[in-house]
């Protein structure tokens, strides 16, 4: 039992589950405040999401819809995670995601590119945005959080301006890919038939593969080791002969690319159209932060946590709208991130408790051994 508790992965899992439970509990209390009648039903509706309908084929289709949005969320989570392992907080993932959306949609609609070049362009555009943050950080000492936020807004307004030329005449949404650029839609590879939903594409398995690649690069390669060393102590890494400035820039380029790939993964399925009058940065990148920390800062854990976050986000609109609004799932996920801040404290507490009980046991054994010795004489 103790051995299991000492395992870092187990501790992370316990901490994440505690965060979820506490987050739901606090969310429930808030709902009770607003309207005590439907609070329990609302929490259940959020948690159930696609399980709510009895119809089997519809349920599978709704699961597919959640998965389609989980893929980009996972990519944003991986982007935040990759940078965090190098000691950088990539809040700019939100803007890099937007840059990916912009590049992929524009290439698809204006230049009629196929899906693969669109995806690649999205990665390049977002990586360039990440590079700006990296250069500012390593050469000008600009805090990456603040430059990231500024670039989020710049990316949003630039995207609105660029995609303005590709919008439908009667609305402020961009053209539908299905009619204007069917060549750019990601291939379904049989998955769409499996889940009975044509928006399900290769994006979902691709995102999971990316998570595994991130895990391998970070933990099993020299490059990943260098990056983590730079994150732990910039100066030590520098004196050990690592190019710490290059590493920081490279990290943010990769992190940007990951988020940009996420943007392409969502918009090239044609599930959503970009609104060119949008005045707030899409929440996908920020939810990625939640997924990362809830996933215990582990790429594999992030796969599950991003599914959970997307699951409750999609469950939001299911609540009884006469009592509450769909944003209660945002409320719950932001409470969960807040609680994730306490994870370190919790882990130290567990370890301290374990060390104490170890010490006690050692003392007991010593005492017993001494008594046994005394008995012999």
């Amino acid at each position, binding site marked *: 039992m103790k051995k299991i508790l000492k395992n870092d992965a187990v501790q992370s899992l316990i901490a994440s589950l505690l965060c979820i439970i506490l987050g739901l509990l606090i969310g429930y209390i808030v709902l009770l405040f607003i309207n005590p009648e439907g609070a329990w039903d609302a929490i259940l509706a959020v948690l159930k999401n696609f399980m709510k309908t009895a119809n089997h084929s519809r349920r599978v289709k709704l699961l597919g819809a959640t998965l389609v949005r989980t893929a980009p969320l996972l990519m944003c989570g991986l982007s935040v995670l990759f940078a965090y392992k190098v000691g950088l907080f990539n809040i700019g993932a939100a803007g890099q995601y937007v840059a990916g959306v912009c590049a992929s949609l524009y290439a698809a609609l204006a230049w009629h590119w196929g899906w693969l070049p669109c995806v690649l362009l999205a990665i390049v555009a977002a990586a360039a945005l990440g590079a700006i943050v990296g250069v500012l950080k390593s050469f000008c000492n*600009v805090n990456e959080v603040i430059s990231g*936020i*500024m670039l989020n807004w*710049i990316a949003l307004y630039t995207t609105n301006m660029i995609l303005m030329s590709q919008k439908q005449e009667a609305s402020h949404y961009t053209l539908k890919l299905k009619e204007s650029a069917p060549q750019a839609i990601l291939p379904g590879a049989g998955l769409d038939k499996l889940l009975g939903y044509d928006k399900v594409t290769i994006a979902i398995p691709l995102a999971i593969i990316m998570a595994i690649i991130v895990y391998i690069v970070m933990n099993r390669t020299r490059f990943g080791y260098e990056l983590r060393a730079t994150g732990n102590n910039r100066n030590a890494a520098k004196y050990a002969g690592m190019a710490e400035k290059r590493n920081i820039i490279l990290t943010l380029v990769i992190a940007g690319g990951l988020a940009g790939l996420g943007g392409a993964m969502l918009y090239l399925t044609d599930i959503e159209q970009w609104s060119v009058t949008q005045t707030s940065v899409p929440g996908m990148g920020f939810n990625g932060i*939640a997924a990362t920390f809830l996933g215990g800062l582990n790429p594999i854990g992030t796969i599950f946590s991003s599914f959970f976050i997307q699951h409750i986000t999609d469950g939001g609109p299911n609540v009884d709208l006469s009592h509450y609004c769909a944003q209660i799932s945002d409320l719950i996920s*932001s409470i969960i*991130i807040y609680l994730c*801040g306490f994870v*370190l404290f919790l882990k130290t507490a567990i370890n301290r408790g374990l060390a104490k009980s170890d010490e006690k046991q050692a003392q007991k054994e010593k005492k017993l051994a001494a008594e046994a010795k005394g008995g012999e004489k």
Partner: protein
Amino acid sequence: MLLLIQYTLIFSSVLLLVALGGCFSEHSGVINLGLEGIMVIGALGGALMMRAMPAGTSALVIVLLTLLAAIVFGVVYSALLAVASINFKADQTIVGTALNMLGTAAATVFVKAINTAANPNDHSATIIYVEPKKAFVKTIGSFEFNWFMVVAVIVLILAYVILYKTRFGLRLMACGEHPQAAASVGINVFKMRWAGVLISGALGGLGGICYILAGVSQWQFEYGVAGFGFLALAVMIFGQWKPLRIALAALLFGLFRALSNVYAGFDFLAALNIPGTVYNMMPYIVSLIVLALTSGKSRAPKAEGIPYDKGMR
């Protein structure tokens, strides 16, 4: 022209208030990235107070009570940051980010709940305050004078005096530079950091209500405050954590923010035929450039962002 000055002054006041809040928090050693969320919650407090007051209330009472509500909401909300980052040694960046997301989400949920309770068909997150807003504004000729400009100047003077001329301020700054040294001469670091964060909560809340009263007379809480909390942090860094320089920086940033509101009124700017979006981006672009030029020789408090550990050397 007058309109440009008016908007510059009001946006500068917002930035000044919030940046001074950040300044207090950082001087005590806690990075307050949650200012954006604190602004939203402060704005919510003020807006709810304005909504609750009966029509005939005198202007002075409206102003005072609204300010008080914004301050109280801001302080209470910032306590979430204080307890996590000071007592539980949490990562200040994560907690700050969580507070930003929580601020907008919570405000939206509450306002929608209130609106729906009042009128079952109303699912918006908007609070309207046309009448009470008049209490904050005094029209002199064609210039709309706003009481927040006075509040900002008073807070600026107070901040300067408190930080540099009182025992409290000097001790606060010591906790942000070298908390162990401060503790060794009997200063309670925990208390000082709590004070720093709560003051930033109060000023952030004030800035929030000031922001939503700046141009409009209703506010949609889904939109938060459009990155103003972070702009204020940029102002603070540009101002090198010093109140008077922060004031100058706030004027500069306020000017660019104001331009996006009134650029159409200038013939030579309108003649350039630049899309409005570019003006919307201006404050963010300018802050990036300014940060790139000034962050090199940063005078940030040395211990900011590091949880206080008594046993550390």
